[in-house]
Protein backbone atom coordinates (compact mmCIF):
# COMPACT_ATOMS: atom_id res chain seq x y z
CA UNK A 1 0.00 0.00 0.00
CA UNK A 2 2.92 2.35 0.73
CA UNK A 3 3.99 2.07 -2.90
CA UNK A 4 0.48 2.79 -4.13
CA UNK A 5 0.25 5.98 -2.09
CA UNK A 6 3.70 7.01 -3.24
CA UNK A 7 2.69 6.57 -6.89
CA UNK A 8 -0.53 8.44 -6.27
CA UNK A 9 1.51 11.33 -4.92
CA UNK A 10 3.80 11.26 -7.95
CA UNK A 11 0.65 11.24 -10.07
CA UNK A 12 -0.73 14.26 -8.25
CA UNK A 13 2.55 16.11 -8.79
CA UNK A 14 2.59 15.33 -12.51
CA UNK A 15 -1.06 16.26 -12.54
CA UNK A 16 -0.26 19.66 -11.08
CA UNK A 17 2.22 20.28 -13.90
CA UNK A 18 -0.35 19.14 -16.46
CA UNK A 19 -2.90 21.44 -14.88
CA UNK A 20 -0.61 24.50 -14.80
CA UNK A 21 0.52 23.94 -18.39
CA UNK A 22 -2.85 23.09 -19.91
CA UNK A 23 -4.39 26.02 -18.07
CA UNK A 24 -1.85 28.32 -19.72
CA UNK A 25 -2.46 26.72 -23.12
CA UNK A 26 -6.20 27.18 -22.77
CA UNK A 27 -5.93 30.84 -21.73
CA UNK A 28 -3.52 31.59 -24.57
CA UNK A 29 -5.64 29.75 -27.11
CA UNK A 30 -8.71 31.69 -26.02
CA UNK A 31 -7.10 35.06 -26.68
CA UNK A 32 -4.52 34.44 -29.40
CA UNK A 33 -6.05 31.46 -31.20
CA UNK A 34 -2.61 29.89 -31.02
CA UNK A 35 -1.63 26.55 -29.61
CA UNK A 36 1.61 27.45 -27.97
CA UNK A 37 4.06 24.71 -28.91
CA UNK A 38 6.80 26.68 -27.14
CA UNK A 39 5.05 26.08 -23.81
CA UNK A 40 7.34 23.16 -22.93
CA UNK A 41 10.46 25.15 -23.81
CA UNK A 42 9.30 28.07 -21.67
CA UNK A 43 8.55 25.69 -18.79
CA UNK A 44 12.15 24.53 -19.14
CA UNK A 45 13.32 28.16 -19.13
CA UNK A 46 11.52 28.63 -15.81
CA UNK A 47 13.53 25.80 -14.29
CA UNK A 48 16.79 27.12 -15.75
CA UNK A 49 15.94 30.58 -14.50
CA UNK A 50 15.69 29.19 -10.96
CA UNK A 51 19.02 27.42 -11.48
CA UNK A 52 20.76 30.61 -12.65
CA UNK A 53 19.27 32.67 -9.84
CA UNK A 54 20.64 30.22 -7.27
CA UNK A 55 24.04 29.59 -8.81
CA UNK A 56 24.66 32.95 -10.45
CA UNK A 57 23.11 35.47 -8.11
CA UNK A 58 22.74 33.41 -4.94
CA UNK A 59 18.99 34.02 -4.84
CA UNK A 60 17.21 31.05 -3.33
CA UNK A 61 14.10 29.07 -4.28
CA UNK A 62 11.64 31.57 -2.77
CA UNK A 63 13.01 34.41 -4.89
CA UNK A 64 12.97 32.13 -7.93
CA UNK A 65 9.32 31.33 -7.34
CA UNK A 66 8.52 35.01 -7.96
CA UNK A 67 11.31 36.17 -10.26
CA UNK A 68 11.37 33.26 -12.74
CA UNK A 69 7.70 33.44 -13.79
CA UNK A 70 7.94 37.23 -14.16
CA UNK A 71 11.20 37.11 -16.12
CA UNK A 72 10.12 34.29 -18.43
CA UNK A 73 6.68 35.91 -18.72
CA UNK A 74 8.33 39.12 -19.92
CA UNK A 75 10.38 37.09 -22.38
CA UNK A 76 7.11 35.59 -23.59
CA UNK A 77 5.55 39.02 -24.00
CA UNK A 78 8.54 40.09 -26.09
CA UNK A 79 8.00 37.00 -28.27
CA UNK A 80 4.34 37.92 -28.65
CA UNK A 81 5.11 41.53 -29.58
CA UNK A 82 7.88 40.70 -32.02
CA UNK A 83 6.73 37.44 -33.63
CA UNK A 84 3.31 36.09 -32.74
CA UNK A 85 1.34 39.27 -33.35
CA UNK A 86 2.04 39.06 -37.08
CA UNK A 87 -0.05 35.92 -37.25
CA UNK A 88 -3.36 37.65 -36.53
CA UNK A 89 -5.91 36.61 -39.13
CA UNK A 90 -3.92 33.68 -40.48
CA UNK A 91 -4.83 30.02 -40.15
CA UNK A 92 -4.34 28.73 -36.58
CA UNK A 93 -1.90 26.14 -37.84
CA UNK A 94 0.68 28.83 -38.62
CA UNK A 95 0.73 29.66 -34.92
CA UNK A 96 1.52 26.04 -34.17
CA UNK A 97 4.34 26.01 -36.74
CA UNK A 98 5.80 29.32 -35.55
CA UNK A 99 5.81 28.34 -31.88
CA UNK A 100 7.25 24.94 -32.80
CA UNK A 101 10.12 26.81 -34.46
CA UNK A 102 10.54 28.98 -31.37
CA UNK A 103 10.63 25.85 -29.21
CA UNK A 104 13.34 24.31 -31.42
CA UNK A 105 15.44 27.48 -31.17
CA UNK A 106 15.15 27.76 -27.38
CA UNK A 107 15.79 24.06 -26.75
CA UNK A 108 18.66 23.97 -29.25
CA UNK A 109 20.41 26.94 -27.65
CA UNK A 110 20.14 25.43 -24.17
CA UNK A 111 21.33 22.05 -25.44
CA UNK A 112 24.41 23.70 -26.91
CA UNK A 113 25.43 25.19 -23.61
CA UNK A 114 24.22 22.57 -21.16
CA UNK A 115 24.21 19.29 -23.10
CA UNK A 116 21.38 16.89 -22.51
CA UNK A 117 22.20 15.81 -18.99
CA UNK A 118 20.44 17.17 -15.96
CA UNK A 119 21.62 19.82 -13.54
CA UNK A 120 20.77 19.29 -9.89
CA UNK A 121 18.66 21.78 -7.96
CA UNK A 122 18.40 21.23 -4.23
CA UNK A 123 15.12 21.25 -2.34
CA UNK A 124 14.97 24.44 -0.23
CA UNK A 125 15.88 23.75 3.43
CA UNK A 126 12.45 24.82 4.72
CA UNK A 127 10.77 22.09 2.68
CA UNK A 128 13.22 19.26 3.22
CA UNK A 129 12.38 16.10 5.11
CA UNK A 130 9.02 14.47 5.41
CA UNK A 131 6.06 13.72 7.57
CA UNK A 132 4.74 10.38 8.65
CA UNK A 133 1.01 10.45 8.00
CA UNK A 134 0.45 7.02 9.51
CA UNK A 135 -0.49 5.34 6.24
CA UNK A 136 2.40 6.82 4.23
CA UNK A 137 5.54 8.91 4.40
CA UNK A 138 4.98 12.32 2.78
CA UNK A 139 8.05 14.20 1.55
CA UNK A 140 7.19 17.80 2.44
CA UNK A 141 8.40 19.28 -0.82
CA UNK A 142 6.11 17.03 -2.85
CA UNK A 143 3.14 17.90 -0.73
CA UNK A 144 4.02 21.58 -1.12
CA UNK A 145 4.09 21.30 -4.93
CA UNK A 146 0.59 19.81 -5.03
CA UNK A 147 -0.93 22.31 -2.60
CA UNK A 148 0.79 25.33 -4.10
CA UNK A 149 -0.15 24.37 -7.69
CA UNK A 150 -3.73 23.88 -6.63
CA UNK A 151 -3.78 27.33 -5.03
CA UNK A 152 -2.27 28.93 -8.16
CA UNK A 153 -4.80 27.15 -10.40
CA UNK A 154 -7.70 28.30 -8.26
CA UNK A 155 -6.31 31.84 -8.15
CA UNK A 156 -6.10 31.86 -11.95
CA UNK A 157 -9.63 30.54 -12.16
CA UNK A 158 -10.77 33.31 -9.79
CA UNK A 159 -8.91 35.96 -11.78
CA UNK A 160 -10.52 34.93 -15.05
CA UNK A 161 -14.00 33.95 -13.94
CA UNK A 162 -14.67 36.33 -11.06
CA UNK A 163 -12.83 39.63 -11.57
CA UNK A 164 -13.47 42.61 -13.82
CA UNK A 165 -10.20 42.06 -15.66
CA UNK A 166 -11.19 38.46 -16.26
CA UNK A 167 -14.55 39.59 -17.58
CA UNK A 168 -12.82 41.82 -20.15
CA UNK A 169 -10.60 38.91 -21.05
CA UNK A 170 -13.50 36.53 -21.56
CA UNK A 171 -15.35 39.17 -23.55
CA UNK A 172 -12.31 39.75 -25.76
CA UNK A 173 -12.09 36.01 -26.34
CA UNK A 174 -15.67 36.01 -27.63
CA UNK A 175 -15.50 39.19 -29.70
CA UNK A 176 -12.31 41.25 -29.71
CA UNK A 177 -13.62 43.95 -32.05
CA UNK A 178 -16.62 44.75 -29.91
CA UNK A 179 -14.50 44.92 -26.75
CA UNK A 180 -12.11 47.25 -28.55
CA UNK A 181 -15.00 49.47 -29.49
CA UNK A 182 -15.67 49.92 -25.76
CA UNK A 183 -12.25 51.50 -25.42
CA UNK A 184 -10.34 48.56 -24.03
CA UNK A 185 -6.83 48.04 -25.31
CA UNK A 186 -7.20 44.52 -26.66
CA UNK A 187 -3.70 44.14 -28.16
CA UNK A 188 -2.17 44.97 -24.77
CA UNK A 189 -4.52 42.47 -23.15
CA UNK A 190 -3.42 39.80 -25.63
CA UNK A 191 0.21 40.44 -24.73
CA UNK A 192 -0.54 40.27 -21.01
CA UNK A 193 -2.53 37.07 -21.49
CA UNK A 194 0.37 35.45 -23.28
CA UNK A 195 2.66 36.61 -20.48
CA UNK A 196 0.28 35.13 -17.90
CA UNK A 197 0.15 31.75 -19.66
CA UNK A 198 3.93 31.70 -20.00
CA UNK A 199 4.34 32.75 -16.38
CA UNK A 200 2.27 29.74 -15.30
CA UNK A 201 4.48 27.47 -17.39
CA UNK A 202 7.64 28.98 -15.90
CA UNK A 203 6.19 28.59 -12.41
CA UNK A 204 5.62 24.90 -13.11
CA UNK A 205 9.25 24.76 -14.24
CA UNK A 206 10.50 26.23 -10.96
CA UNK A 207 8.32 23.82 -8.97
CA UNK A 208 9.64 20.84 -10.91
CA UNK A 209 13.33 21.85 -10.74
CA UNK A 210 14.01 20.10 -7.40
CA UNK A 211 12.02 16.99 -8.39
CA UNK A 212 13.01 16.42 -11.99
CA UNK A 213 16.48 17.61 -12.84
CA UNK A 214 16.93 20.81 -14.82
CA UNK A 215 17.39 19.65 -18.42
CA UNK A 216 17.10 21.44 -21.79
CA UNK A 217 14.60 18.83 -23.04
CA UNK A 218 12.57 18.53 -19.83
CA UNK A 219 9.62 20.25 -21.46
CA UNK A 220 9.81 18.64 -24.89
CA UNK A 221 8.10 15.37 -24.09
CA UNK A 222 5.93 16.90 -21.39
CA UNK A 223 4.25 19.27 -23.82
CA UNK A 224 3.07 16.36 -25.97
CA UNK A 225 1.38 14.76 -22.96
CA UNK A 226 -0.14 18.15 -22.14
CA UNK A 227 -1.50 18.34 -25.70
CA UNK A 228 -3.22 15.01 -25.10
CA UNK A 229 -4.58 16.39 -21.82
CA UNK A 230 -5.94 19.40 -23.71
CA UNK A 231 -7.57 17.16 -26.31
CA UNK A 232 -9.18 15.10 -23.54
CA UNK A 233 -10.36 18.05 -21.49
CA UNK A 234 -11.15 20.48 -24.26
CA UNK A 235 -10.11 24.10 -23.98
CA UNK A 236 -13.55 25.42 -23.24
CA UNK A 237 -13.28 25.92 -19.50
CA UNK A 238 -10.57 26.87 -17.03
CA UNK A 239 -11.85 24.58 -14.31
CA UNK A 240 -12.11 21.77 -16.86
CA UNK A 241 -8.40 22.07 -17.69
CA UNK A 242 -7.43 22.04 -14.02
CA UNK A 243 -9.57 19.05 -13.11
CA UNK A 244 -8.55 17.08 -16.21
CA UNK A 245 -4.89 17.81 -15.53
CA UNK A 246 -4.99 16.56 -11.96
CA UNK A 247 -7.22 13.60 -12.81
CA UNK A 248 -4.94 12.38 -15.59
CA UNK A 249 -1.93 12.72 -13.33
CA UNK A 250 -3.65 10.48 -10.79
CA UNK A 251 -4.63 7.95 -13.46
CA UNK A 252 -1.03 7.90 -14.63
CA UNK A 253 0.15 7.33 -11.06
CA UNK A 254 -2.28 4.45 -10.60
CA UNK A 255 -1.12 2.91 -13.88
CA UNK A 256 2.48 3.14 -12.69
CA UNK A 257 1.49 1.01 -9.69
CA UNK A 258 -0.81 -1.53 -11.34
CA UNK A 259 0.69 -1.86 -14.82
CA UNK A 260 3.97 0.09 -15.05
CA UNK A 261 4.59 -0.82 -18.72
CA UNK A 262 1.67 1.36 -19.77
CA UNK A 263 2.46 4.38 -17.60
CA UNK A 264 4.04 6.28 -20.51
CA UNK A 265 1.14 5.67 -22.80
CA UNK A 266 -1.96 5.68 -20.61
CA UNK A 267 -2.76 9.36 -21.21
CA UNK A 268 -2.60 8.83 -24.98
CA UNK A 269 -4.77 5.72 -24.78
CA UNK A 270 -7.32 7.67 -22.74
CA UNK A 271 -7.21 10.38 -25.39
CA UNK A 272 -8.09 7.80 -28.03
CA UNK A 273 -10.99 6.50 -25.92
CA UNK A 274 -12.33 10.00 -25.32
CA UNK A 275 -12.10 10.78 -29.04
CA UNK A 276 -14.07 7.67 -29.85
CA UNK A 277 -16.80 8.42 -27.33
CA UNK A 278 -16.97 12.21 -27.25
CA UNK A 279 -14.81 13.77 -29.96
CA UNK A 280 -15.18 17.33 -28.64
CA UNK A 281 -13.42 16.49 -25.37
CA UNK A 282 -14.94 16.21 -21.93
CA UNK A 283 -15.70 19.90 -21.42
CA UNK A 284 -15.28 21.12 -24.96
CA UNK A 285 -17.82 22.61 -27.26
CA UNK A 286 -18.06 21.68 -30.90
CA UNK A 287 -15.64 23.63 -33.06
Amino acid sequence: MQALYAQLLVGLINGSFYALLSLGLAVIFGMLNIINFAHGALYMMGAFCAYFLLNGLGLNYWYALVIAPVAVGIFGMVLERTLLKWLAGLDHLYGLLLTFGIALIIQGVFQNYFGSSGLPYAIPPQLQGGMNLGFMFLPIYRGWVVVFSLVVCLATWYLIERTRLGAYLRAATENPNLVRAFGINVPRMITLTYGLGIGLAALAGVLSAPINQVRPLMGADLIIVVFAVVVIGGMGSIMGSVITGFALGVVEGLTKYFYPEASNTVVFVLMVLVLLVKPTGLTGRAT
Partner: protein
Amino acid sequence: MSVITDNSTPASSGRGIRDEMVAFVIMAALLATVPFTGIYPFFVMQALCFALFACAFNLLIGYGGLLSFGHAMFLGTAGYFTAHALKVWGVSPEIGIVVGTAGACALSVVTGWISIRRQGIYFAMITLALSQLVFFVYLQTPFTHGEDGIQGIPQGMLFGLFDLSKPTTLYYVILVAFLLAFLLIFRAINSPFGEVLKAIRENEPRAVSLGYKADQYKLMAFILSGTLSGFAGSLKVFVAQNASLTDVHWTMSGEIVLMALIGGLGTVFGPVVGAFIIVAMQQYLAGFGQWVTVIQGAIFVICVLTFRRGIVGEIAALFKRSL
Protein backbone atom coordinates in the same frame (compact mmCIF):
# COMPACT_ATOMS: atom_id res chain seq x y z
CA MET B 1 -12.23 30.73 -43.89
CA SER B 2 -8.49 30.99 -44.25
CA VAL B 3 -6.64 27.91 -45.36
CA ILE B 4 -3.25 26.74 -44.21
CA THR B 5 -1.66 26.95 -47.61
CA ASP B 6 -1.25 30.28 -49.32
CA ASN B 7 -0.59 28.50 -52.59
CA SER B 8 -3.72 28.60 -54.64
CA THR B 9 -4.40 25.35 -56.39
CA PRO B 10 -6.60 26.29 -59.30
CA ALA B 11 -8.84 23.70 -60.85
CA SER B 12 -6.57 21.63 -63.04
CA SER B 13 -6.19 23.32 -66.35
CA GLY B 14 -4.43 21.90 -69.38
CA ARG B 15 -1.58 24.38 -69.06
CA GLY B 16 -1.00 23.69 -65.38
CA ILE B 17 -0.63 19.98 -65.94
CA ARG B 18 1.61 20.53 -68.97
CA ASP B 19 3.94 22.78 -66.93
CA GLU B 20 4.10 20.22 -64.20
CA MET B 21 4.83 17.36 -66.61
CA VAL B 22 7.70 19.36 -68.15
CA ALA B 23 9.08 20.05 -64.68
CA PHE B 24 8.71 16.36 -63.85
CA VAL B 25 10.70 15.28 -66.90
CA ILE B 26 13.44 17.80 -66.09
CA MET B 27 13.56 16.57 -62.49
CA ALA B 28 13.72 12.91 -63.57
CA ALA B 29 16.48 13.63 -66.10
CA LEU B 30 18.54 15.58 -63.58
CA LEU B 31 18.21 12.85 -60.97
CA ALA B 32 19.08 10.13 -63.50
CA THR B 33 22.44 11.77 -64.24
CA VAL B 34 23.49 11.99 -60.58
CA PRO B 35 25.71 8.84 -60.59
CA PHE B 36 27.80 10.34 -63.42
CA THR B 37 28.42 13.63 -61.65
CA GLY B 38 30.42 12.42 -58.69
CA ILE B 39 27.83 13.62 -56.20
CA TYR B 40 27.78 11.33 -53.18
CA PRO B 41 24.93 8.94 -54.14
CA PHE B 42 24.14 8.08 -50.53
CA PHE B 43 23.19 11.70 -49.93
CA VAL B 44 20.86 11.84 -52.93
CA MET B 45 19.24 8.51 -52.05
CA GLN B 46 18.57 9.70 -48.53
CA ALA B 47 17.18 12.95 -49.89
CA LEU B 48 14.94 11.03 -52.31
CA CYS B 49 13.47 8.98 -49.46
CA PHE B 50 12.73 12.15 -47.53
CA ALA B 51 11.42 13.83 -50.67
CA LEU B 52 8.89 11.02 -51.10
CA PHE B 53 8.02 11.24 -47.42
CA ALA B 54 7.53 15.00 -47.72
CA CYS B 55 5.37 14.60 -50.85
CA ALA B 56 3.17 12.09 -49.03
CA PHE B 57 2.87 14.45 -46.07
CA ASN B 58 2.09 17.34 -48.42
CA LEU B 59 -0.76 15.35 -49.95
CA LEU B 60 -2.57 15.59 -46.64
CA ILE B 61 -1.80 19.19 -45.70
CA GLY B 62 -1.62 20.76 -49.14
CA TYR B 63 -4.73 19.17 -50.61
CA GLY B 64 -6.66 17.94 -47.59
CA GLY B 65 -5.87 20.91 -45.34
CA LEU B 66 -4.96 18.55 -42.51
CA LEU B 67 -1.68 19.23 -40.70
CA SER B 68 -0.36 15.99 -39.27
CA PHE B 69 2.30 16.41 -36.61
CA GLY B 70 2.84 12.68 -36.27
CA HIS B 71 3.86 11.45 -39.69
CA ALA B 72 7.08 9.98 -38.32
CA MET B 73 5.02 7.08 -36.98
CA PHE B 74 4.44 5.82 -40.54
CA LEU B 75 8.06 6.26 -41.58
CA GLY B 76 9.29 4.51 -38.46
CA THR B 77 6.71 1.72 -38.48
CA ALA B 78 7.47 0.77 -42.07
CA GLY B 79 11.17 1.00 -41.33
CA TYR B 80 10.92 -1.38 -38.38
CA PHE B 81 8.65 -3.82 -40.23
CA THR B 82 10.86 -3.92 -43.32
CA ALA B 83 14.04 -4.20 -41.26
CA HIS B 84 12.59 -7.02 -39.15
CA ALA B 85 11.31 -8.91 -42.20
CA LEU B 86 14.65 -8.63 -43.99
CA LYS B 87 16.88 -9.44 -41.08
CA VAL B 88 14.91 -11.94 -38.97
CA TRP B 89 12.65 -13.59 -41.53
CA GLY B 90 15.23 -13.29 -44.30
CA VAL B 91 12.68 -12.36 -46.97
CA SER B 92 13.60 -10.80 -50.32
CA PRO B 93 13.65 -6.99 -50.65
CA GLU B 94 10.34 -6.70 -52.51
CA ILE B 95 8.53 -8.70 -49.82
CA GLY B 96 10.25 -6.59 -47.18
CA ILE B 97 8.96 -3.41 -48.79
CA VAL B 98 5.46 -4.84 -49.02
CA VAL B 99 5.52 -5.84 -45.34
CA GLY B 100 6.70 -2.39 -44.26
CA THR B 101 4.27 -0.49 -46.44
CA ALA B 102 1.39 -2.72 -45.38
CA GLY B 103 2.28 -2.10 -41.73
CA ALA B 104 2.18 1.66 -42.26
CA CYS B 105 -1.08 1.28 -44.18
CA ALA B 106 -2.71 -0.63 -41.31
CA LEU B 107 -1.47 1.97 -38.83
CA SER B 108 -2.82 4.80 -40.97
CA VAL B 109 -6.26 3.18 -41.13
CA VAL B 110 -6.47 3.07 -37.34
CA THR B 111 -4.88 6.44 -36.58
CA GLY B 112 -6.77 8.12 -39.41
CA TRP B 113 -10.07 6.77 -38.18
CA ILE B 114 -9.34 8.24 -34.74
CA SER B 115 -7.81 11.56 -35.71
CA ILE B 116 -10.13 12.81 -38.45
CA ARG B 117 -12.81 13.23 -35.80
CA ARG B 118 -11.27 16.63 -35.09
CA GLN B 119 -9.91 19.29 -37.39
CA GLY B 120 -7.30 22.01 -37.55
CA ILE B 121 -5.29 22.53 -34.44
CA TYR B 122 -6.79 19.54 -32.63
CA PHE B 123 -5.98 17.24 -35.54
CA ALA B 124 -2.34 18.29 -35.27
CA MET B 125 -2.25 17.67 -31.53
CA ILE B 126 -4.00 14.31 -31.84
CA THR B 127 -1.65 13.01 -34.52
CA LEU B 128 1.31 14.18 -32.45
CA ALA B 129 -0.02 12.38 -29.38
CA LEU B 130 -0.74 9.21 -31.37
CA SER B 131 2.78 9.17 -32.77
CA GLN B 132 4.15 9.59 -29.26
CA LEU B 133 2.04 6.60 -28.23
CA VAL B 134 3.54 4.61 -31.11
CA PHE B 135 7.01 5.82 -30.09
CA PHE B 136 6.61 4.47 -26.56
CA VAL B 137 5.27 1.17 -27.88
CA TYR B 138 8.39 0.74 -30.04
CA LEU B 139 10.58 1.83 -27.15
CA GLN B 140 9.25 -1.05 -25.07
CA THR B 141 8.59 -3.92 -27.52
CA PRO B 142 11.60 -6.23 -27.85
CA PHE B 143 11.62 -6.65 -31.65
CA THR B 144 12.77 -3.05 -32.21
CA HIS B 145 15.79 -3.51 -29.89
CA GLY B 146 14.97 -0.30 -28.04
CA GLU B 147 17.67 2.37 -28.11
CA ASP B 148 19.99 0.30 -30.35
CA GLY B 149 17.52 -0.14 -33.19
CA ILE B 150 17.76 -2.85 -35.82
CA GLN B 151 21.19 -2.68 -37.42
CA GLY B 152 23.20 -4.40 -40.14
CA ILE B 153 20.23 -5.11 -42.36
CA PRO B 154 21.04 -7.20 -45.48
CA GLN B 155 20.05 -5.42 -48.71
CA GLY B 156 19.61 -8.51 -50.88
CA MET B 157 18.59 -8.99 -54.51
CA LEU B 158 15.46 -7.17 -55.68
CA PHE B 159 13.25 -9.57 -57.72
CA GLY B 160 16.31 -11.83 -57.73
CA LEU B 161 17.81 -9.57 -60.40
CA PHE B 162 19.13 -6.33 -58.95
CA ASP B 163 21.90 -6.45 -56.38
CA LEU B 164 20.96 -3.69 -53.95
CA SER B 165 24.35 -3.78 -52.24
CA LYS B 166 25.80 -2.04 -55.31
CA PRO B 167 25.37 1.72 -54.79
CA THR B 168 24.54 2.52 -58.42
CA THR B 169 21.92 -0.24 -58.71
CA LEU B 170 20.40 0.80 -55.41
CA TYR B 171 20.36 4.40 -56.56
CA TYR B 172 18.35 3.66 -59.68
CA VAL B 173 15.96 1.38 -57.82
CA ILE B 174 15.31 4.13 -55.27
CA LEU B 175 14.96 6.70 -58.05
CA VAL B 176 12.44 4.62 -60.00
CA ALA B 177 10.44 3.92 -56.85
CA PHE B 178 10.44 7.62 -56.00
CA LEU B 179 9.34 8.68 -59.49
CA LEU B 180 6.54 6.09 -59.58
CA ALA B 181 5.24 7.16 -56.18
CA PHE B 182 5.52 10.80 -57.22
CA LEU B 183 3.43 10.13 -60.33
CA LEU B 184 0.88 8.30 -58.20
CA ILE B 185 0.55 11.34 -55.91
CA PHE B 186 0.38 13.64 -58.94
CA ARG B 187 -2.34 11.47 -60.43
CA ALA B 188 -4.28 11.42 -57.16
CA ILE B 189 -4.16 15.20 -56.85
CA ASN B 190 -5.53 15.70 -60.36
CA SER B 191 -8.13 12.95 -60.18
CA PRO B 192 -11.79 13.50 -59.32
CA PHE B 193 -10.83 12.30 -55.85
CA GLY B 194 -8.25 15.07 -55.57
CA GLU B 195 -10.74 17.69 -56.77
CA VAL B 196 -13.26 16.67 -54.12
CA LEU B 197 -10.50 16.79 -51.52
CA LYS B 198 -9.66 20.36 -52.52
CA ALA B 199 -13.33 21.26 -52.40
CA ILE B 200 -13.59 19.91 -48.85
CA ARG B 201 -10.50 21.83 -47.85
CA GLU B 202 -11.88 25.09 -49.20
CA ASN B 203 -15.41 24.74 -47.87
CA GLU B 204 -16.33 21.60 -46.02
CA PRO B 205 -20.00 22.37 -45.23
CA ARG B 206 -20.62 23.12 -48.89
CA ALA B 207 -18.96 19.94 -50.06
CA VAL B 208 -21.06 18.01 -47.57
CA SER B 209 -24.22 19.75 -48.77
CA LEU B 210 -23.34 18.63 -52.30
CA GLY B 211 -23.49 15.06 -51.06
CA TYR B 212 -19.81 14.26 -50.61
CA LYS B 213 -18.97 12.24 -47.53
CA ALA B 214 -16.19 14.50 -46.30
CA ASP B 215 -14.94 12.15 -43.61
CA GLN B 216 -14.49 9.30 -46.07
CA TYR B 217 -12.46 11.49 -48.40
CA LYS B 218 -10.31 12.75 -45.54
CA LEU B 219 -9.73 9.22 -44.30
CA MET B 220 -8.79 8.07 -47.80
CA ALA B 221 -6.30 10.93 -48.09
CA PHE B 222 -4.91 10.10 -44.67
CA ILE B 223 -4.45 6.43 -45.57
CA LEU B 224 -2.86 7.25 -48.91
CA SER B 225 -0.52 9.71 -47.25
CA GLY B 226 0.38 7.33 -44.42
CA THR B 227 0.93 4.39 -46.75
CA LEU B 228 3.20 6.35 -49.07
CA SER B 229 5.11 7.69 -46.05
CA GLY B 230 5.55 4.05 -45.07
CA PHE B 231 6.79 3.25 -48.57
CA ALA B 232 9.42 5.97 -48.09
CA GLY B 233 10.33 4.45 -44.74
CA SER B 234 10.75 0.98 -46.28
CA LEU B 235 13.02 2.36 -49.02
CA LYS B 236 15.06 4.24 -46.46
CA VAL B 237 15.95 0.96 -44.73
CA PHE B 238 17.91 -0.11 -47.82
CA VAL B 239 19.82 3.16 -47.86
CA ALA B 240 20.57 3.57 -44.16
CA GLN B 241 20.67 -0.19 -43.39
CA ASN B 242 19.20 0.43 -39.98
CA ALA B 243 15.88 1.24 -38.34
CA SER B 244 15.96 3.24 -35.15
CA LEU B 245 13.83 5.26 -32.76
CA THR B 246 14.97 8.48 -34.46
CA ASP B 247 12.57 7.72 -37.29
CA VAL B 248 9.56 7.50 -34.95
CA HIS B 249 10.45 10.48 -32.78
CA TRP B 250 8.49 13.73 -32.87
CA THR B 251 11.57 15.58 -34.11
CA MET B 252 11.22 13.60 -37.35
CA SER B 253 7.58 14.63 -37.64
CA GLY B 254 8.70 18.23 -37.20
CA GLU B 255 11.42 17.87 -39.84
CA ILE B 256 8.99 16.63 -42.45
CA VAL B 257 6.68 19.57 -41.75
CA LEU B 258 9.67 21.84 -42.20
CA MET B 259 10.63 20.24 -45.53
CA ALA B 260 7.16 20.71 -46.95
CA LEU B 261 6.88 24.23 -45.53
CA ILE B 262 10.19 25.52 -46.88
CA GLY B 263 9.54 24.00 -50.31
CA GLY B 264 5.94 25.14 -50.43
CA LEU B 265 2.84 23.57 -48.89
CA GLY B 266 0.38 22.54 -51.54
CA THR B 267 2.86 22.71 -54.39
CA VAL B 268 3.70 19.58 -56.34
CA PHE B 269 7.48 19.99 -56.37
CA GLY B 270 7.97 22.03 -53.21
CA PRO B 271 8.39 19.06 -50.84
CA VAL B 272 11.12 17.61 -53.10
CA VAL B 273 13.05 20.88 -53.06
CA GLY B 274 12.51 21.24 -49.32
CA ALA B 275 13.72 17.71 -48.62
CA PHE B 276 16.95 18.25 -50.58
CA ILE B 277 17.59 21.54 -48.77
CA ILE B 278 17.05 20.15 -45.29
CA VAL B 279 18.97 16.90 -45.90
CA ALA B 280 21.86 18.88 -47.41
CA MET B 281 21.80 21.26 -44.47
CA GLN B 282 22.00 18.38 -42.01
CA GLN B 283 24.81 16.83 -44.01
CA TYR B 284 26.99 19.94 -44.14
CA LEU B 285 26.20 21.27 -40.69
CA ALA B 286 26.55 17.90 -38.95
CA GLY B 287 29.62 19.17 -37.09
CA PHE B 288 27.76 22.02 -35.44
CA GLY B 289 25.81 19.85 -33.00
CA GLN B 290 22.57 21.27 -31.76
CA TRP B 291 22.96 24.48 -33.76
CA VAL B 292 21.29 22.51 -36.56
CA THR B 293 18.16 22.39 -34.39
CA VAL B 294 18.42 26.13 -33.79
CA ILE B 295 18.76 26.78 -37.52
CA GLN B 296 15.78 24.54 -38.27
CA GLY B 297 13.75 26.47 -35.71
CA ALA B 298 14.85 29.75 -37.26
CA ILE B 299 13.81 28.52 -40.72
CA PHE B 300 10.36 27.66 -39.31
CA VAL B 301 10.04 31.17 -37.89
CA ILE B 302 11.27 32.87 -41.07
CA CYS B 303 9.08 30.73 -43.34
CA VAL B 304 5.93 31.34 -41.33
CA LEU B 305 6.54 35.08 -40.96
CA THR B 306 7.89 36.01 -44.38
CA PHE B 307 7.29 33.48 -47.10
CA ARG B 308 4.45 31.15 -46.36
CA ARG B 309 4.26 29.99 -49.96
CA GLY B 310 7.67 28.35 -49.69
CA ILE B 311 10.40 28.46 -52.33
CA VAL B 312 8.53 26.69 -55.12
CA GLY B 313 5.32 28.51 -54.26
CA GLU B 314 7.06 31.88 -54.55
CA ILE B 315 8.63 30.93 -57.89
CA ALA B 316 5.30 29.66 -59.19
CA ALA B 317 3.59 32.88 -58.09
CA LEU B 318 6.31 34.92 -59.80
CA PHE B 319 5.75 33.20 -63.12
CA LYS B 320 2.02 32.74 -62.54
CA ARG B 321 2.34 29.02 -63.12
CA SER B 322 1.38 26.11 -60.93
CA LEU B 323 4.27 23.90 -59.97
